């Protein structure tokens, strides 16, 4: 029995000690001679060397830490503090406690932005996930062929384009009078739509663009996930009689679950924070971002406008803090749930 062996290898611990055997299982073999050699090497090192070595490590980290600190950690901490203050750019800054939260929760527009964000996320996560997975499965065979590289590049290409630039192009594609979108619709006999100028269709248009821009990234992630599924396991399942659907449901899907989980988290975070494309598509440059009729006014858009259009920096900070907490909670919940369906090899 395996247990017997592990217990025999840990003479220092009482027989059957769960701690002992667990440790043994984690670190398979510790060679006492090897460890002794390392220790004696350490002792022979001079004092200067012993202090200088870790110091060198910190020294090398400093540049990146400084940039990260100035542009990320410090602003992040300041934002958290600011959320509880009223900050007047030209006057005195006063402590407001939970006052900012009270203002927000009494503001219907804020609630509406949260709902819009939730709707956006709830549609985008399954939609992007399924499309990316479907594309990856279609492209999988091509991975081994030379021509597969071309198809992969084609799908990944939108993701490397700048959001603002391509958003502006899509504004033209969505143009109700002479846009390509309506041209295509009328060709298949469907009614023309107002797209970005219609409160009902503006958000779907944004979703469409977001899907186009981001699906390539997730497809490539899925392709990477598929490529590490051992070919022989798939073949074993074929010999066992699994056809396409069974193969996917009982072999591919469970083995792909770590990738699916990663993609799910990434889509949730990216869509919840989505800003640039919404702002650009709905005319943020001319002061109309989030329109028409606030139909595309997600949390991120509202935060931007609160801060930079209306100069309510502290209120925007509060909103950011709430968004952060929501994201954190959702991620933690997803992580907890993941243990039930994600299999790590």
């Amino acid at each position, binding site marked *: *029995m*395996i247990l017997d062996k592990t217990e025999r290898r840990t003479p220092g611990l009482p027989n059957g000690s769960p701690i002992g055997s667990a440790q043994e299982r984690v670190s398979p073999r510790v060679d006492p001679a090897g460890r002794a050699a390392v220790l004696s090497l350490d002792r022979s090192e001079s004092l200067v060397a012993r202090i200088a070595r870790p110091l060198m490590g910190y020294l090398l980290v400093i540049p990146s830490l400084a940039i990260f600190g100035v542009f990320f950690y410090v602003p992040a901490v300041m934002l958290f503090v600011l959320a509880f203050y009223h900050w007047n750019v030209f006057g005195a800054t006063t402590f407001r406690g939970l006052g900012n939260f009270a203002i927000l929760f009494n503001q219907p527009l804020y609630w509406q932005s949260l709902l819009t964000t939730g709707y956006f996320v709830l549609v985008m996560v399954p939609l992007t996930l399924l499309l990316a997975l479907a594309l990856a499965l279609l492209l999988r065979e091509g991975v081994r062929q030379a021509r597969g590289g071309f198809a992969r590049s084609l799908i990944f290409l939108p993701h490397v384009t700048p959001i603002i630039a391509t958003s502006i192009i899509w504004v033209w594609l969505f143009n109700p009078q002479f846009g390509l979108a309506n041209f295509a619709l009328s060709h298949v006999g469907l009614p023309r739509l107002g797209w970005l100028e219609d409160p009902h269709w503006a958000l779907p248009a944004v979703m469409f663009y977001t899907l186009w821009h981001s699906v390539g990234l997730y497809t490539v992630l899925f392709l990477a996930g598929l490529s590490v599924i*051992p070919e*022989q*396991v798939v*073949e*074993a*399942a*074929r*010999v*066992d*009689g*699994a*056809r396409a659907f*069974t193969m996917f449901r*009982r*072999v591919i899907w*469970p*083995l792909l679950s770590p990738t699916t989980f990663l993609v799910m988290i990434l889509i949730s975070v990216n869509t919840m924070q989505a800003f640039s494309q919404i702002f650009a598509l709905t005319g943020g440059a001319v002061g109309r971002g989030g329109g028409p009729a606030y139909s595309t006014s997600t949390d991120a858009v509202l935060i931007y406008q609160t801060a930079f259009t209306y100069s309510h920096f502290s209120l925007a900070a509060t909103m950011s803090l709430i968004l952060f907490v929501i994201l954190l909670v959702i991620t933690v919940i997803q992580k907890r749930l993941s243990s039930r369906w994600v*299999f790590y*090899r």
Partner: protein
Amino acid sequence: MVMVKVDAVTKRFANVPALTELSIEVKDGEFFIMVGPSGCGKTTLLRILAGLERPDSGEVWFGDRCVTATDPGSREVGMVFQNYALYPHLSIFENLAFGLRVRRTNRKEVRERVTDVAKLLDLQELLERKPKQLSGGQRQRVALGRAIMRQPQLLLMDEPLSNLDAILRERMRIELRRFHDRLGITTIYVTHDQKEAVSMADRVMVMNGGRIEQMGSPEEIIRHPSTEFAARFMGQPPMNMWRASMEVNATGAALISAGSESSWTIPGPWPRIFIGSPHIWLGVRPHDLALASPGEVADLVVTVDVVERGGADEVFLHCRHRDETLVVCVAGTRRIPRAGEEVGLTVRLDRIHMFDTDTGARIQPLVGNGRAAATALLVGGELQ
């Protein structure tokens, strides 16, 4: 009864031929081993039998059923893969049950069948574990269990022992053979290890470059390799092979001069085609060479290069004979020459092998078939 028939199968990968017009027949209940160096096409043939590859031309028959275009799941075959290929996310129980679950077998039957197979392979204690928690040998047994779960008519094994350590491999060879004898499932087994082929098979097929070099029982292939390749590939240590010249005299006897002091006469009758082109490959197995006793006439005089202990009572002498090297197997009980020493060797002339240097084919005496010729050789050898 012929269980598996492969008829003129050809397979190319990107225009590189992997199998060329290959035909075999495997009998019901036979343990058939395909052996050859990597890239010889043995695995491709196994995959064609499993249905994982389609042949470009030719047919595959299981019994009276043509399965050339049948998909793997409907062929009723079990397969053991080189790296086990267990389902990493499923427990051992579910690994074994997978094939039955795919077929929607009812729960009670699944439980019964898994329990039976687990008992057969001594896996009862492991059923709740995941493959990762098992040792190599245990995984191997699970892979075997999964392969026989659906009671296949044919068991395919692709180098199943190559991922195990030497000791375990040794043991599993015996286990696999015992297992086969107990269940009697027709087994086709691929390996690059000639030792596995010799020790386990009922019949061996030696392959090279997508073609069959020789097919027969292990003894037959060791005793009468039909090609130079089969001669070199099978047997441990490998057969000594060097260039010699062969002349056939008026009585039909062959005069072989192996670069040695005297030429050896082997009664024939031998074909005379070699009179013009006397060069041949001369092969002698290390066990068919011996140290000449004092007073005995040596067939070869060699210099000992390295003395290698082969085990408790076997010693391999690596010797030099002019430009050639050759290995002699001697009993460890007698006096062992030291490196650098010059020794005389006797050759069992009834057991030498001769091959055409152009075609690699075995040179046979003119009478009857190979077996009769071999008997003639044997008699001739004893007469000398």
